[in-house]
């Protein structure tokens, strides 16, 4: 698992990722560029768990659009949740696809 978590550095290198946060329950497993990660952890894991219970097959991702254009994306990663804040002006759908691919490459999903 540690190797996989280390592999998340790949996510940080994706163009358009401003910050990311990998969360397990309320614990921050890995953070990159996120201010107050502990504060954000709970809301990320909670919304991921709720979203996961909406459809039997779970969910692929959540996209929260924000006024400042730093949109929030949340991905289910096994029992973890990955929250990403994107840079302004980045195509959210393309970014979501890149992150999904990276997670697959790391063998997280």
């Amino acid at each position, binding site marked *: 698992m540690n190797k996989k978590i280390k592999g998340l550095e790949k996510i940080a290198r994706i163009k358009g990722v401003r910050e990311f946060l990998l969360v397990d329950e309320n614990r921050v497993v890995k953070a990159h560029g996120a201010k107050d990660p502990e504060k954000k952890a709970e809301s990320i894991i909670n919304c991921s768990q*709720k979203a996961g219970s*909406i459809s039997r097959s779970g969910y692929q991702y959540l996209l*929260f*659009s*924000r006024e400042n254009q730093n949109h929030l994306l949340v991905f289910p990663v096994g029992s973890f949740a990955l929250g990403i804040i994107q840079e302004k002006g980045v195509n959210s759908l393309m970014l979501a696809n890149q992150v999904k691919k990276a997670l697959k490459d790391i063998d997280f999903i």
Partner: protein
Amino acid sequence: MIAFCEDCGNKNHLPDQADGTKRIIFRCSRCGYPNNYAVQDTPHPDNMLAYDHGHEAFDPLLGAISALPEIDGSFVFSNADGLIAFNMPRLFSEKQIKALATLLEQTYEGPKQVYRGIKDMVLVTQNKAVLVKSLGRSKFLVVVAAQFPLTAQIMEKLNNLIASFGKKRSNRTP
């Protein structure tokens, strides 16, 4: 024909309109409000389950949205009143729509406490997408789509419907 007052929701019985009428203009028999709004010429398909709990104002909006290609259905809910109105495929029961609304509300509200300026949310699953759009302070419009992203044309139509609905409501607010 029956037309709902945009202001008080009263049902008004009007003479049948000629075919092709796209707009109805009438004064509400109860509150006197001068109604003037476009009529959707696309009726609800028979396989849709529609309900508007005392807020008939949402019915035209939901009917028009649910009639768009790529859209499976739509509903409105609020933090305070729960499920307000819906126009969803019959395969969903009212109980299921309420449960979905509750989960969506919890999913949507969580990050708002920490991340400022959140407007809309999209939940993407394997074969559906659920769009949650805020309609003011406490009401939310939910659109269940068969795919995501929607085509630009449908997205534009959807945004126009929501914008014109918001405009009508703000015009009514003194």
